[in-house]
Structures are given as C-alpha cells and as structure tokens.
C-alpha cells in the first residue's frame, strides 16, 4: 500500500505544467489516493475533484438548458430549478462553472491528450474494439485511448463554442443585434446535442461498458489487469513489464488455480 502523486510520466514543461503541479500538490493535502497491491495510480485527487465538478456543472447546465431547448421538457425540468425564470437565470452561471472547471481539466490533461500515431491506429481498429472482438486494446494504446482523446477535444471545442455563443445569448439582441443571437442559438444547441451524445457513451464506457474503470475517477486507482487490458502501453510505461506477458501469466495462474 502506497500513497503517491506522480502520474503518466509527463515530460513537458512551462507555465501550464507549473500551475498544474502546484494545484495537484495542494490537493494532495485535501485527500489521498490509496493504491493497493496489484493496482496502479490512475488519477490523483486534483484530477478527480475537477472531473466531478465538471460533471456536476455539466448536468446542472444540461438540465436547465434542455428545459429551455425542448417544449416537451419545459414543464418537466424547470420545476427542479424553481421554475422557468430561475432556470433561465441560473443556466448561464452553471454553464460558466462548467467551462471554468473544464478549462482547469483541459490544462491538467493537455499533455496526455496529444494525438499520436498510436491513436490513428486505435481508430482503425475501433470497429473490433467496440464490438468486443478485440479483447484487449492495441498494444500501443497509452494513458488515454483515441476515443477518450476525441471526446476530450470535442469538449474543448464545445466549450469555446458555448462560451462565445452563450455570452451573445446572455447579453441578448439588445447588445449584439438580432442576427448574431439567432445564429448563436443554433450553434449553442448543436454543440449541446453533440456533447450529450458523447456523454452517453462516456458514462456507459466508464461504468457498465468497461467494468473497473469507474474506480479510476473515485478512488483514483485501477487494477493492473485493467491497465494491461485497456491501456497496454501505459502499463508498460509505469511497470516496465510487458502487458501481453503479464496477461498470459495471469491466465496461467487462473487456469491452474481453477483446476482442482
């Protein structure tokens, strides 16, 4: 059992990294991550706190926003937030909270989210991975896979679109004129629907779709088996062992112990 804070062996430097290291360090005083034997550290306290703040504000903004988006939902959703007028007043603030927290997360994850050749390879194999035909992810899959990176960059783009169009909608036609408002409204909505579709997949993958993932964001640690199955290159990087061999070894142990 050990408590540790280094992650993903990031090597980039500069202002972002320094800011981020400081934030991570100060959050280690607020909580800790226990990594048991047979496990690996996945996400430190800071990353987890920011992730759940992002998720919280996302859903607050989603529900206040969707009640205004679809007439069919208006009467269902607005009462949760104290009625239509209050939903309207709160939505931009929830949205701003989401953008600010995701901004922190974006700085936090900029380095591991950079697209590499391994990701293009992952995309070519996506069909097999999604259908479950490929039991393990491609051997060169690192800390994040291409699907996760796509989702990350989609949200980065979405946040920028939200922020610009949201401010235009917030201040309204009196400040920006009729046409910018009418256009912003469409972009804002498209951005929301794309993000919603992505979030369904995201929540599914990190809970039911790939069991063992959820604990990465709550306890911060994952099993070694999870790591060599879904992120083999990362497994190799942090343990120095070969993921394929480690898996075979575990399989041998499992079959011998299951025979009487």
């Amino acid at each position, binding site marked *: 059992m050990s408590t540790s804070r280094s992650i993903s062996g990031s090597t980039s430097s500069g202002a972002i990294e320094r800011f981020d290291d400081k934030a991570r360090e100060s959050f280690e005083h607020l909580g800790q991550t226990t990594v048991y034997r047979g496990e690996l550290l996945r996400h430190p306290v800071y990353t987890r706190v920011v992730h759940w703040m992002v998720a919280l504000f996302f859903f607050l903004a989603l529900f206040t926003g969707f009640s205004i988006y679809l007439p069919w939902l208006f009467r269902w959703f607005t009462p949760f937030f104290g009625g239509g007028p209050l939903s309207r007043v709160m939505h931009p603030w929830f949205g701003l909270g989401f953008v600010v927290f995701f901004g922190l997360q974006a700085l936090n994850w900029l380095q591991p989210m950079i697209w590499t050749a391994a990701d293009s390879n992952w995309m070519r194999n996506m069909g097999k991975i999604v259908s479950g035909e490929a039991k393990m992810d491609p051997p060169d899959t690192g800390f994040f896979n291409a699907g996760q990176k796509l989702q990350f960059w989609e949200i980065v783009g979405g946040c920028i679109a939200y922020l610009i169009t949201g401010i235009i909608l917030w201040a309204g*036609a009196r400040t920006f004129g009729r046409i910018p408002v009418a256009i912003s409204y469409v972009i804002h909505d498209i951005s929301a629907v794309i993000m919603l579709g992505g979030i*369904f997949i995201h929540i599914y993958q990190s809970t039911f779709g790939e069991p063992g993932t959820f604990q990465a964001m709550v306890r911060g640690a994952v099993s070694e088996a999870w790591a060599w199955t879904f992120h083999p290159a990362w497994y190799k990087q942090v343990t120095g062992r070969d993921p394929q061999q480690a898996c075979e070894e575990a399989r041998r142990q499992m079959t011998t112990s299951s025979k009487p």
Partner: protein
Amino acid sequence: MADRKALQAEMISGHSGPAPGHGMQRDLEVCKLVDTTTCIGCKACEVACAEWNDLPFSPTTFDNTYQTMPETRWNFWNLIKFNEHQNPDGTIQWLMRKDQCMHCADPGCLAACPADGAIVKYANGIVDFNQENCIGCEFCVSGCPFNIPRFNPATKRVYKCTLCSDRVGEGLEPACIKACPTGCLKFGTKDDMKFIAEERTKQLRDNFGWKNAGVYDPQSVGGTHVIYVLHDATDPERYGNLPSNPQIPWSYTVWKWLFKPVLGTFALFGFLGVVLHYVTSGPRRTQPEPPAKDGANVNV
C-alpha cells in the same frame, strides 16, 4: 364586433402540440388601421395607452423633435415616431407613424420564445405576452422584425402592446382608437380595414397626387393586424425604420420546428444505443477472463 370567443388561442409559444380548442369556432380577424396621412401627432393615443394599461410614468428625453422619447419602452408601448423627410422637389414632409406591436400573423417573437404559454396568438390575430409565464430570456427580442418587445430589468419580463386584448375580448375597441381625434386610427375586421385602407390609398393617388401611396401589410410575416396607409409605400423606412421586408430569422422557424425534435430524438437514440450495446455485445472485461464453462458456447 366581438364577443368572448374573440380571445380563442391559436398559437402558444414553447408549447408541445397545438393550442387546445383551436379550430372549434370560426373567428373574425381584427385589425387596427393607422392612416399616417391624417395623423396630426397629437399624442392622444400615447396618453390613452398609458392610462388604460396603467403604465407607470418614466422621464423622457427631449431631442428637439415632436417625438415623446427615442423608442418605445417596457412601460410605453405606443409611440408616435416623428421624421422630417425632404422630397426631391425640396418640399418638406413631417411624417408621423404610430409605432407599436404589429400583431403579425406569423409572429417572430412567438417562434423564438421557448417558454410554454409566455406568448399567445389568438385566433382573432392578437399576439399577447403573458408575463406570468415569461422566463426573461429575451429571445423574442431577436425574433421580432419590428424591434418591439421590451425588457424590464426589475421584473425580468418583457412587455409590449396587447392590442388591448382585455378590451377587445369584451367587445370594445383599443384605447388608442377611442382617443384618436382625427379618425386616423380605425379598428374593425381585417377585411373591412383592408378595404378602407385600399379606398384611402386610391383617393391619395387619384386626388392628392401621392403616386406611390399604398397599404403596409407585409406578407413576409403573413400580414399584420396593424396596417398602415403610407404616402409612399415604396420606402417605408423613412417612417422611422419601418422595414420594407420584415423577416423572421430562419433559425427560429426551420431550426425550432424541424431540427430540434430531430436532434432531440437522436440524443434519445444515443441513450438507446449504449443500452443496446450492453445487452447485445455486452461489456468488455479486463483480461484474462475466467475460462468459459466446460462445453458452453459463449456465442449464444
């Protein structure tokens, strides 16, 4: 005209499904006729409007013209716009136009509004804001081609001319009509008002030399329930920015009634998609998995 069925709802903003009860009875469309050629700019209608609707006084700014204030306000729905126009022959015209909600047949404000029941269009043509349902988003401001809805920051609601729906519902004419001393304002059915307006423009063309006199009833918003007689219908802009071709942004029509439901459904299918994935191909487990039961076919 008019009895209580004059206030039968025809369209309701942000409402799923058609307006309840619409189409049960046939209603006459009402209309206000404003003859700009006989308006003397006395402001009686402004006062009558503020009086009847109990609108609180607010200080105005004097800009050296015969106009009460630069624009309508949340508490001032009826403004006589004053414009000095120079004709090509050097003569000067004082143009007075009563500015207020046009009660469009195709109301951009209503199309833009997301709140169920905040804007209602009655079968008689009146477009009314119900402040108790308004959420203060001001989308109606961007939907309206006539720059009419006004936001009150204190109540966070928008306000505008109601065409005195409360009076019309009881069989009375709007307050401004009652106050007008010259007969420049008239109220009745849309057909009657169109007829009078056409007669008047004929008179202006034939007897007074206003070659371009015409009726303003813009078809780009399906016609309006406030129509103008203009000396020169080819250039409505000179009457204080009356748009010659008022438009509702496409985003509020196509987007709202077509793409929103479609995209909303896609989002739902996203959810169904992941559920289906789970029950068909199932989760991807960490490897190694426990060996399959002897003889069992894992692909069943």
